[in-house]
């Protein structure tokens, strides 16, 4: 993947290509996608965040300002990625927004238990989906004060 050493604002973790395309299109339309990295599975997401594997060159880079995390992912499941992020002192402060098709109570409960910052169900209807993605992008990148990073 590219963006080895660039500033990354949004890490989009999404295995479904159409959902990814719709989300990125919306963020782009709202000028929020200038520094966006898209990974397709949980393992790659963790490699990126912890500067491992193909992302080893990122060890000196600041963490992303927002992680958009789908729950159903290949290799490492979304819930597991969430758990690792919130467990590790290096990544614990990164805002993570779960963006998923699931509305099941147990997924919501489990996510909050692990320390998710926000849980969003992807609307099926595109207009609503676009609006949701745009609003949450703006909220977390523009309104929300990012955590102060040690670096």
């Amino acid at each position: 993947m590219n963006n080895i050493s660039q500033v990354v604002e949004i890490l989009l973790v999404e295995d479904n290509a159409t959902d990814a395309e719709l989300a990125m299109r919306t963020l782009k339309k709202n000028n929020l996608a200038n520094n966006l990295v898209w990974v397709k599975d949980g393992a790659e997401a963790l490699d990126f965040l912890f500067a491992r594997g193909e992302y080893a060159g990122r060890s000196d880079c600041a963490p992303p300002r927002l992680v958009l995390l789908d729950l159903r992912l290949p290799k490492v499941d979304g819930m597991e990625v969430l758990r690792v992020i919130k467990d590790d002192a290096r990544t614990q402060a990164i805002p993570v927004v779960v963006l998923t098709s699931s509305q099941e109570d147990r997924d919501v409960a489990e996510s909050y238990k692990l320390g998710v910052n926000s849980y969003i169900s992807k609307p099926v209807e595109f207009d609503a989906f676009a609006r949701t993605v745009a609003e949450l992008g703006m909220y977390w990148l523009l309104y929300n004060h990012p955590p102060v990073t040690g670096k």
Partner: protein
Amino acid sequence: MNDSSAETDNEAKLKEALAESQQRELEFSALLEASRTILEHRDFPQAARRIFDSCKNLTGATAGYVALLNEEGNENLVLFLDAGGRTCTVDPSLPMPVRGLRGEAYGEPGTVYENSFSSSPWIKFMPEGHVRLDNVLFAPLLIGGKAVGVMGIANKPGGFTERDARIATAFGDIAALSLSNNWTLDEFAKSETKVKKLNEELGRHAADVEEVNKELEAFAYSVSHDLRTPLRAIDGFSRILLEDYENKLDDEGKRLLNVVRDNTDRMAHLIDDILHFSRVGRTGMSLSEIDMEGVARAVIGELEPLVAGRKLHINLGKLPNVQGDRAMMHQVFENLLTNAIKFTGKNDEAHIEIGGKVEADKAVYYVKDDGAGFDMQYADRLFGVFQRLHSAEEFEGTGIGLAITKRIILRHGGTIRAEGEVGKGATFYFSIPVTQTEVVC
């Protein structure tokens, strides 16, 4: 001279009375001891042996046996045999048919005895090698007036008396009591085993149901996630097409794409409804006493925005309380009232009435409207899943509301039905038992 003979007379009478009294004492003690025997010996043959021995000793007999009647009632099954010192070569395990004097004891039924056995008609029934009988007495064992066995005593020096018959009858009764007790205990043990087995079966069924529920939950979860994603893609990319190629599409092109989007919308609602319906059947119920009038009033308040600007009169009568799941009842009123509001949408002025009363052990409620109504011919399709009696153009909806309502009512052990007339309106009646027993549905 008279005095002394009267004195010896009295003395004799006194001695006789004393002897009689002592004899009675012996009899009572023996009978009481036999009673205790029943409690101490649950094994009937053991108890019977002791009772028999006691009876034999008390009467002065020297031989005898106890036998039970077989199921068909025509044969004796010998429990034990006491030949009293005389030889007996007859095999006691052979079938002993009911006949002779014994047959008389069964037939009455009552105690019988014969003191001149060898010259009696009964002698001819004696098999080869049988103990030589001088006299014999039979006391049947009676349970509920029916003979179930017999105790026979024999060879008393001097012959049996009426008194002996009375004593043997009493002992026979006690033996019968012991037997009856045993049978009761056996039945009880059998019932206990049966109950235990049924409980185990029930436990297995419950586990099966739990398993199926888990599978359904996993299924619903998969449906919700896996079906929604492609739908989002269809809707989203149609939209992108409309946006990015706006100037390349004519009105017809745009219309076609919007048809695609409308249908994905409809499908999304259908998926939501299916999941909702499946969840209604599976979630646990939390029972409490429900103020139904309060629930109805709350729902009316929530549906206010739907009726803004319309001439709609809602009349809420006094509703009886009922025991049930409050959230589910809320859904019922929500469904029925939403329908009433929807189907009166074309009225200039609409009227909706809600009422209820208690009938015997049930609370009966109704929601009545004067809207579009329906053809009674198709009344049984009303509550079917996704069944509709009106087209989507006339009135929107997926047709799941009433199916969900019916599910909820059924889970409460109640019934629901509807009456309607095209153009006049519809009334939905549902009844629920006032209190809930543990119903799992």
